[in-house]
C-alpha cells in the first residue's frame, strides 16, 4: 500500500500566472467556506455534528502516525481515546451541572493528552518485539482488556451512569465548540506536518520500510517506535478529552464491547480509506466517518424512508464502510490521499497532473548506463 510522507515537488509558485493564483484562491476559499460557512449557516445541530467530524479527524491523524507512518497496525486506538475521555471527565466532574472553570478545562485536556501518551507507551513497549498479525492481535486484546478493566471501574465511570464533563462557559455554544475542535485539528495537523518533515518523521518512515536500513542510518529503532506510539496515543487522548466535552459526559458503554470494538474497526477502516500515510486523505475520510450517521439520517429523511432506516440503523453504516474499504483496496489502494494528491500539488504551485513526477524513472540520465 502506498505510504510515506507526502512529498510535493519543489513549489513553483513563481511561475504561476495571475489567473492561476486566482483559481487557487477560489479553491482555497471554497474549502474554507465548506468547513466554516456551511456548518454555521445550517445551525446548531449541524455544528454539533461537524464537531464530531473534527474529533474523528484528530483520531484519524493519530491512527495515521501509528499505522501509516510507523507501520504498526493498531486495533486498540479506542482505548487511548477512552482513557483520555475518562481522565478528562473525572478531573472536571462535579455533582452540580455548572460550567467548568477554564483552567480546570485546560488541565483536563492536558491530562487526557498525557494519559493517552502513557497508555500508548505501555502498549508500544509490549508491542516492540512483534509485528504484523500478532501486533494487530495484541492491540485488539489490549483495547478489549482496557475496556473490561479500566472503563468498568465503578468509581471512575460514575457507577456505570456516566461522568459529566460540562463545557466551560466560553465553549458552551455549538459554534464556539466547533471552532475549538477546528483549532485542535489545526494544532494536530501542524504537529503531524512538523513530525513528517523533521528527523523523527524520517526515522519512523525508515523503520517502517526496513529496521536494518534505519539502524544503518543511526536510527534507534526502539526509541522511535515508542515515540510513534506515544505521539499517536497523545493525539488520540486529546481526541478523547475533547470527545468527553462534546458529549459532556463519559460513558463506559462507548468504549466497551460491542461499541468499542466497532470504533476500533472504524478507526482502522477510515485511515485505510483515507490512504495510509496521507495526511489530507485521512482527515477527509475520518471527517466523513464522523459525519456518516447524520448524513444517513438526513438522506433517509429526505427520501422519506426514515422508518426503514431506524429499523436498519445497526448495519447500514457498517455496510457503507465495508463497501468503501473494498473499493479502496481493490481499485484505489492509495486511498483518498491518492485522489487528492494532484490537487495538493496544484495548490502548492505545480502543474495539475495526475502523474507524480517523483515516480519518474531516471532513464536517459547520464549516470544510467548499466
Amino acid at each position: 500500500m502506498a505510504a510515506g510522507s507526502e512529498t510535493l515537488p519543489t513549489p513553483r509558485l513563481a511561475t504561476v500566472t495571475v489567473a492561476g493564483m486566482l483559481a487557487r484562491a477560489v479553491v482555497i476559499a471554497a474549502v474554507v467556506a465548506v468547513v466554516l460557512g456551511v456548518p454555521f449557516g445550517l445551525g446548531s445541530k449541524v455544528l454539533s455534528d461537524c464537531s464530531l467530524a473534527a474529533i474523528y479527524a484528530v483520531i484519524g491523524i493519530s491512527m495515521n502516525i501509528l499505522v501509516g507512518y510507523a507501520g504498526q497496525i493498531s486495533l486498540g486506538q479506542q482505548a487511548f481515546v477512552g482513557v483520555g475521555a475518562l481522565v478528562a471527565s473525572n478531573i472536571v466532574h462535579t455533582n452540580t451541572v455548572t460550567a467548568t472553570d477554564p483552567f480546570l478545562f485546560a488541565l483536563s485536556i492536558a491530562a487526557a493528552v498525557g494519559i493517552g501518551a502513557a497508555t500508548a507507551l505501555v502498549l508500544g513497549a509490549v508491542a516492540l518485539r512483534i509485528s504484523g498479525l500478532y501486533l494487530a492481535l495484541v492491540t485488539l486484546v489490549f483495547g478489549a482488556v482496557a475496556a473490561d478493566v479500566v472503563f468498568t471501574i465503578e468509581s471512575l465511570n460514575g457507577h456505570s451512569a456516566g461522568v459529566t464533563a460540562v463545557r466551560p462557559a466560553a465553549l458552551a455554544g455549538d459554534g464556539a465548540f466547533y471552532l475549538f475542535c477546528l483549532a485542535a485539528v489545526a494544532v494536530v495537523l501542524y504537529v503531524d506536518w512538523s513530525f513528517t518533515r523533521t528527523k523523527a518523521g524520517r526515522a519512523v518512515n525508515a523503520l517502517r520500510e526496513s529496521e536494518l536500513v534505519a539502524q544503518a542510518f543511526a536510527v534507534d529503532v526502539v526509541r522511535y517506535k515508542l515515540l510513534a506510539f506515544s505521539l499517536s496515543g497523545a493525539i488520540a487522548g486529546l481526541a478523547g478529552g475533547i470527545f468527553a466535552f462534546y458529549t459532556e459526559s463519559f460513558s463506559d458503554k462507548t468504549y466497551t464491547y460491542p461499541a468499542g470494538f466497532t470504533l476500533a474497526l472504524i478507526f482502522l477502516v477510515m485511515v485505510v480509506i483515507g490512504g495510509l500515510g496521507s495526511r489530507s486523505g485521512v482527515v477527509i475520510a475520518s471527517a466523513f466517518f464522523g459525519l456518516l450517521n447524520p448524513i444517513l439520517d438526513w438522506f433517509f429523511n429526505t427520501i422519506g424512508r426514515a422508518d426503514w432506516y431506524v429499523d436498519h440503523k445497526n448495519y447500514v453504516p457498517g455496510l457503507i464502510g465495508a463497501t468503501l474499504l473494498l473499493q479502496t483496496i481493490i481499485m484505489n489502494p492509495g486511498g483518498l490521499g491518492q485522489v487528492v494528491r494532484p490537487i495538493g500539488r496544484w495548490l502548492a504551485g505545480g502543474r495539475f497532473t495526475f502523474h507524480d513526477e517523483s515516480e519518474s524513472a531516471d532513464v536517459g540520465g547520464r549516470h544510467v548506463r548499466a
Partner: protein
Amino acid sequence: MSVLELDGVSIRFGGLQALDHVSLKVDEWEIVGLIGPNGAGKTTLFNCVTGFYKPNRGRVRYRDQDVTNVPPHKKAAMGFGRTFQNVGMVKGATALENLKTAQHAHAGYDALTGIVGTPTVLARERELTAKADAILELLGLEDVRDLRVGGLSYGTLKLLELGCALATDPDILLLDEPSSGMGPDESHELGDRLLALRRELGLTMLLIEHHVPLVTRVCDYVYVLNFGQLLAEGAPEAIRNHPDVVAAYLGGEAPEALEEAAE
C-alpha cells in the same frame, strides 16, 4: 592504532560455523578488500562489525575501543557507514529524503524539538538539505534528487546508497559489493570515485567485492574468506595468484584461469 580490528571473531548459526576465528585489521586511510566465494561469510562479518550480529566469541575493536556489543544504530553514529548487498535505502522516499534520513545522528536537534519546529530546527534542516545536495553533486546524481528511490535503476541505487553511507558522516566505510549491477566502465568509474573519496574525505574502507580488476586497483590489502575462515591475506597481486584462493574460487583450476576471468 588501527581503525578497525577483529580479533578471533566467531559466530555460529545452529550447525553452521559462519565465521571461525577471523582476525583482520584495517588501518587509517587504507582500503581493504574482503573477497571469497558465495557463502564464505563476508556479509556475516560485516554484520558482526556493524553490530547487527553479536559474535559468539572474539572482539571487534574500533580505534582501540571494544565495540563488540555496541548496537548497530550507535555504531552508525560512531562512524561506521555501511551499504547493503541488496541496497539499503528507504524505497518509498526520494533520494533527497534518504540523504537527509541518513544524517539522522547529525541532525543537531532532538526529535521533540523537531516536532515543535523552532527556528533552529528550520536552519538545521536547510543545512541538512544543503549537505544532501552537495553529496548528490559529488556523485553526479542531481537529476534523481526528487525521484522516489524505488523507481531508480540498480546502478544508480548502488551509487546513491554510497551517498547515503557518506551522509552518515562515516569514519570507516563498509561497502558490500558496491560494483554489483554495474558494467565494466561504471565499475572503473566507481574505483576512481572510491580513491577520490579517500583522498578528499580521508576515509578508511573495508569492501566486499567480486570484481577482481576493481579490487586490484583500489585495495591496499586483501583478505580472503572461505567457509568462514581466513584463507589468505596479502597485497592484491599476491592474492590474485595465490593457489589456495584460485582453488577456492574455481575448484582447483590453474591460476591462469583466474587471470582470464579477471580480464
